[in-house]
C-alpha cells in the first residue's frame, strides 16, 4: 500500500482529525489558565461525579431486579443512595448552569458546549421521570397516571406509554442513560477541545 493510499483511508483520516482536535495533552491536560480560580468551577465535575454514582447505584439495583429494593433492607439502602445521588446530580447541575450562564460560557465558539449541556439537562429530566414511574410503588402509580395527560396531549403518549412499566423501565435503564452518557461525553470533550472560556475583557479586539 502506498503512503498516499494510507492517507486516504477512513481510519487514517479519522485518527488524524481526532489527534488534531484533541491531542493527549488537551484530553488530559496538566495545566489550566490562571483565571480558573473560583469554586464555581467545581460544579461541572461535581455533576459528572454524581452521574457516576447514579449509574453505579443503578447498576447495583439492576443486579437484583426491579422488585429487590422493596423487600431487602440492603436493596432499599442502595435505592436511597440512588435517590440522593440524583438529588445531588440535579443540585450540582443547576448550580453549574447558573455559573456557566454568569460566565456566558458559550463565547468563543463554545455554543455547542452550551447546547449539549442544555440537552443533557432535558434528557436527565426524562431519565428522572422514567425512574420515578419505574419504582413500582404508590408514587409511580400517581406520577404515571398524572403525567400521562401531559404526554398524551403532545401525541407522544400513544407511543410512549407511561403506564407501561416494562417500557418505562427499559427507557430508564437503557435508552436514557445511553443518551445521558453520550451527551455528557460530548459536552466534556468539547470543554477539553475548546478550553475553559476566558474572562470578559474590556477593550478586547482579537477574538479566539
Amino acid at each position: 500500500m502506498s503512503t498516499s493510499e494510507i492517507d486516504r483511508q477512513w481510519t487514517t483520516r479519522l485518527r488524524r482529525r481526532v489527534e488534531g482536535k484533541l491531542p493527549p495533552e488537551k484530553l488530559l491536560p496538566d495545566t489550566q489558565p490562571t483565571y480558573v480560580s473560583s469554586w464555581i468551577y467545581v460544579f461541572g465535575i461535581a455533576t459528572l461525579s454524581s452521574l457516576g454514582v447514579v449509574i453505579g447505584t443503578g447498576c447495583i439495583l439492576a443486579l437484583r431486579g426491579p422488585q429487590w429494593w422493596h423487600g431487602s433492607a440492603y436493596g432499599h439502602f442502595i435505592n436511597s443512595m440512588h435517590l440522593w445521588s440524583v438529588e445531588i446530580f440535579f443540585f450540582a447541575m443547576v448550580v453549574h448552569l447558573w455559573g456557566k450562564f454568569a460566565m456566558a460560557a458559550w463565547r468563543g465558539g463554545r455554543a455547542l458546549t452550551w447546547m449539549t449541556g442544555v440537552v443533557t439537562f432535558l434528557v436527565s429530566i426524562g431519565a428522572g421521570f422514567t425512574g420515578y414511574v419505574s419504582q413500582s410503588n404508590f408514587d409511580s402509580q400517581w406520577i404515571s397516571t398524572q403525567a400521562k395527560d401531559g404526554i398524551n396531549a403532545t401525541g407522544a403518549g400513544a407511543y410512549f406509554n407511561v403506564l407501561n412499566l416494562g417500557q418505562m423501565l427499559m427507557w430508564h435503564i437503557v435508552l436514557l442513560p445511553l443518551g445521558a452518557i453520550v451527551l455528557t461525553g460530548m459536552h466534556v470533550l468539547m470543554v477539553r477541545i475548546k478550553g475553559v472560556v476566558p474572562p470578559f475583557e474590556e477593550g478586547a479586539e482579537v477574538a479566539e
Partner: protein
Amino acid sequence: MSKKAFRPDVDAPKWKGGYSPYDIIKEGTIALVVILVLTVIFAVVFGSPDEKAITVRTWSNADPIDFATTALSELNGTSTSAAYGAPYNNVPGTGQAMGPLKLEQWVGVRIPINAAQDFVISPLKSLPDQPILDQNLKTWSTASTTTQNSWLSSYGKAATKMKVAKGQIVVNTTSAGPLPIMINDLTQMARSGALDQALVTGHGFYTTDYTKPLLFLADSGYLANLASNQHLTGDQWGMMNETGSYPGQAWLWLYTFWYQIAPFNTSASGDALVFATMGVLSLVLLFVPFIPGLRSIPRKLKIYRLIWREHYQDNK
C-alpha cells in the same frame, strides 16, 4: 482586509496569560469521593420513601362504594378513561390542542381501551361457574342500547344512596335490570384480588403493562384522595413533591408553576399549553448563545466580576 468586529457576548478574547499546574485526574477522584460520601450520608440519615402501591383489592376493600360508583361510570361512559379520547378511544370533541395543532387527535387511538368491556364485562365473563352472573351478563349484552341506557340511568339515580350491607353493594332500585348483580359481583371480584390479575393478563401470562389497572384506579376518587393527603395533586404543586417529608423534584418548579395560573388551569387544553410553553422556553434556553439581548445578560449582570476577581485584580 478589515478585522471582524469583536462581539463581547459572542466572541471570547484570546488568552495570552499564564497557566498553572492542574491535576485533572486528582480533582476528578476527589470530586467522586466527596459525592460518594455525601450520598452515603444522606442515604444513611434519611433513607428513601417507598409507599406501597394501591391495588384494586385494597381500593375496593377500603372504599367499596367508591369502587362500585367508578365501575358504573366505566359502564355508562362518564369515567375519565371512558370519555378520554385518543390515544385510548374515539370520543368526539375530545383531544387537547396547541392552537391549530391537534396532535393527540391526529395520532389517534393506539392504546385501545373500551372502558365498559375492559373494566367490567370481560373481567366478569372470566369468572368460572357463575350461572346467575352469566345470565345477567347475557341479559346485558342482548339488550338494546336504549334499554341499557335506561338501566344505567335508574341505577345511577339510586346509586346516590348506595349502601354496603354484609359486604354486598345494595342499591335501592328494581328497574336497573342486570346492573345490581353485575356491579356487586365486580366489587366482590375486586375485593378478592381477582380483578387485579384479570386486568393485567390480557396478553398472556407475562406482562409488564399496567395500563388497564392504572386507568381504572385513576378513575376513582380513592387514588386522588391519597395523593391529595400527600400534597401530590396539580393544584398543590404536586409535581415537585415527594411522599412524606422527602425533597422532591425542585427542578420541575417552572413546569408545575403554569398549572397554578390561567389560562393553563382553566383551559381544556391546559396540559398541551403547558407542554408547548415549556417546549418554547427549553428552545430559548438551548439557543441562548444566538439570542441577542438574552446573551448580553451575563455581561450586564456582572456576576462574572466575582468569579474572575483575582484575574481582574492582578491585571489592573
